[in-house]
């Protein structure tokens, strides 16, 4: 497990990351969201040791993280680009070797991954000769190459076409299923919602929400929607709940007393036809907007 504890970074008088703490559990995909300038990239750079922190620490499996630990991490920086004028297989092997892999092993793994991303025929091409999407694929391969112990990816999905997004998602799922913690930042909330087990929301350098997607969506008073055949005006007189919105036979309500929804449902059934009775969970985008507002 990767743990971030009270991490703080200041640039001059500007506190860019302010006592941020969260966990990236093993085998789970953690989405890192926040507006531009919220401090996501700075936090990730501190986790990777590329940038020093003013306060706080990063723990790996319970102990303060070391250079050797980080060497085994897969990292994808925010801005893309490897060596434009070098054959792709060669530079992937170079990067893997820098991470401590033996040359032959690096070659085999790089080839395998290139095949997987449909670049098996282009191993000798210079990076700049590839399309942007394919360059991105090579970048991804570079970050996952030496069988990573953890993945820290800054906007791994930006600039990918839908097919590449799918193969990237599949690849990440592959790593989490092997018990590897994955932290990735993204602006695409729908994608984060679809892929992530957990979510960390940052706003202006501070942590505003963290937890599993379900936890976050269940935060606050539970809401239900009830649709009945006739006018639902009678719901207003029902105890233990507040009506948020009522139009004809459709009513949205918040439960004040636990269990009040069961009594309400029984009453509705007694009165006539019930077309719909459902728990309303806010979309991730709503939570995000609320948290970062």
């Amino acid at each position, binding site marked *: 497990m990767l743990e971030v504890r009270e991490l703080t970074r200041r640039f001059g008088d500007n506190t860019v990351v302010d006592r941020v703490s969260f966990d990236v559990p093993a085998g789970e995909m953690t989405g890192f969201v926040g507006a531009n300038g919220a401090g996501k990239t700075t936090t990730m750079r501190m986790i990777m040791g590329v940038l020093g922190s003013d306060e706080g620490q990063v723990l790996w499996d319970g102990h303060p993280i070391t250079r050797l630990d980080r060497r085994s991490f897969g990292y*994808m*920086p925010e801005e893309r680009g490897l060596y*434009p004028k070098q054959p792709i297989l060669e530079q992937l092997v170079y*990067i893997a070797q*820098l*991470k*401590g892999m*033996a*040359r032959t092993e690096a070659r085999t793994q790089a080839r395998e991954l290139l095949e997987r991303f449909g670049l098996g025929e282009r191993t000798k091409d210079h990076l700049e000769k590839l399309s942007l999407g394919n360059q991105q694929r090579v970048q991804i391969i570079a970050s996952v190459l030496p069988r990573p112990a953890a993945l820290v990816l800054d906007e791994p999905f930006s600039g990918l076409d839908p097919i590449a997004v799918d193969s990237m998602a599949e690849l990440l799922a592959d790593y989490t299923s092997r018990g590897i913690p994955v932290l990735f930042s993204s602006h695409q909330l729908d994608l984060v919602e679809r892929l992530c087990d957990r979510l960390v929301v940052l706003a202006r350098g501070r942590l505003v929400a963290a937890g599993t997607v379900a936890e976050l969506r269940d935060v606050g008073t539970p809401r239900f929607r009830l649709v009945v055949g006739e006018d639902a005006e009678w719901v207003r007189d029902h105890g233990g709940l507040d009506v948020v919105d009522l139009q004809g036979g459709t009513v949205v309500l918040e439960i004040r007393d636990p269990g009040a929804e069961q009594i309400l449902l029984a009453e509705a059934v007694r009165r006539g036809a019930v077309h719909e009775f459902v728990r309303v969970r806010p979309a991730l985008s709503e939570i995000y907007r609320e948290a970062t507002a």
Partner: protein
Amino acid sequence: MSTHTTPAWLLVTRREVKSRITDKTFLIGTVLLVAMIVGFMGFTTWQSEKTNHVKLAATPDSVAMVQAVIDAAPAIDDKVDITLVRVDDAAAAEAALTDEEVDAWLHPASGAWELTTESSADSDLTAVVDAIVSQQVLSQNAATAGTTLEALTAGTQVSTVFLRGDATKAAVADVVGFVFVFLFYIAALLFGMQLASSVIEEKQSRIVEIIAAAIPLRHLLAGKVLGNTVLAMIQVLIYVAVGLVGMAFTPYRSYVSDISGPAVWFLAFFLAGFIALACLWAVAGSLASRTEDLQATSTPLTMVIMVILFAGLSLDGRAAVIASYLPPVSAVVMPKRILVGGVAWWEPLVALGLLALFAACTVWVGEKLYRRALMQTGGRVTLRQAWSAAE
């Protein structure tokens, strides 16, 4: 995963050398310069060995003098072969010159002699004619005055005597010294720029972050500096070797052994001098955030290299002696002094030691600045910012 693998700095060095040595522009540049050196040598040899055939026109009043010139010419310059062409009068001579049937016309004019050519004079011919005519006229004048040429010119000769070597050797030392200085200048500038832009390339594409997460940045710097040093040394070695071997085929072959020793010293000084500057080039690259910034961030360094160039070309006497100990200009001034001669055996060693010490300092300072500036994103970094930046 095996933990016993190639050290990171060596991997970086290898990549630097490999990616550059397989680069077409680098190869073409090297081959072109070698071709230029060989061509220059060939041209020098051809120029000095070819015989200059000249047709010299003589009007009836100058036949005797032209004949005298032809007879005495081999003693003055055996590479000038003069043929006599008789013409009837001045008009015919001028016509022959215009039609390029003759190269020059020697004739008396208002009590003296004139060598008329169409537009440009052959310097070899002019020298020969000048020497012989003045000798002839002096002899005649001497006879008229009742004395001899020998009596007249006795004691007028000034001959140049060198305490060390001779005039040609000094000239060769001058030229080779110039080549040393220039080679250093070109290599320091070209390879330095190359090193700086490869640093920017890594910084700009953020691949440096991937690398920084994997290896200590000092390994990256060491690898880049070493790689470029190896490349620069290979190139300079090729040039020096081609130059020396080529020289063995020119009339200056007797000086090859005189130059070989200083050439080895030059390579040693080049190595120390290059490393001293290479780390600073890496800093210049790390301060920039885009290639366009390099012009600005490398200005102090290009100034230093210009100073080295001018010091190398212009200093002599006491100034040269002082400069030959003063890093980084000692990198070119000392090899030049060795070339001229008269340097005690310990002098180059002391200068090289000082230069190496200087290199150690720039490596130390450079490594700090490089590491701190490299991770700063967003715009150019000033030296002060880099020095005081937290890591």
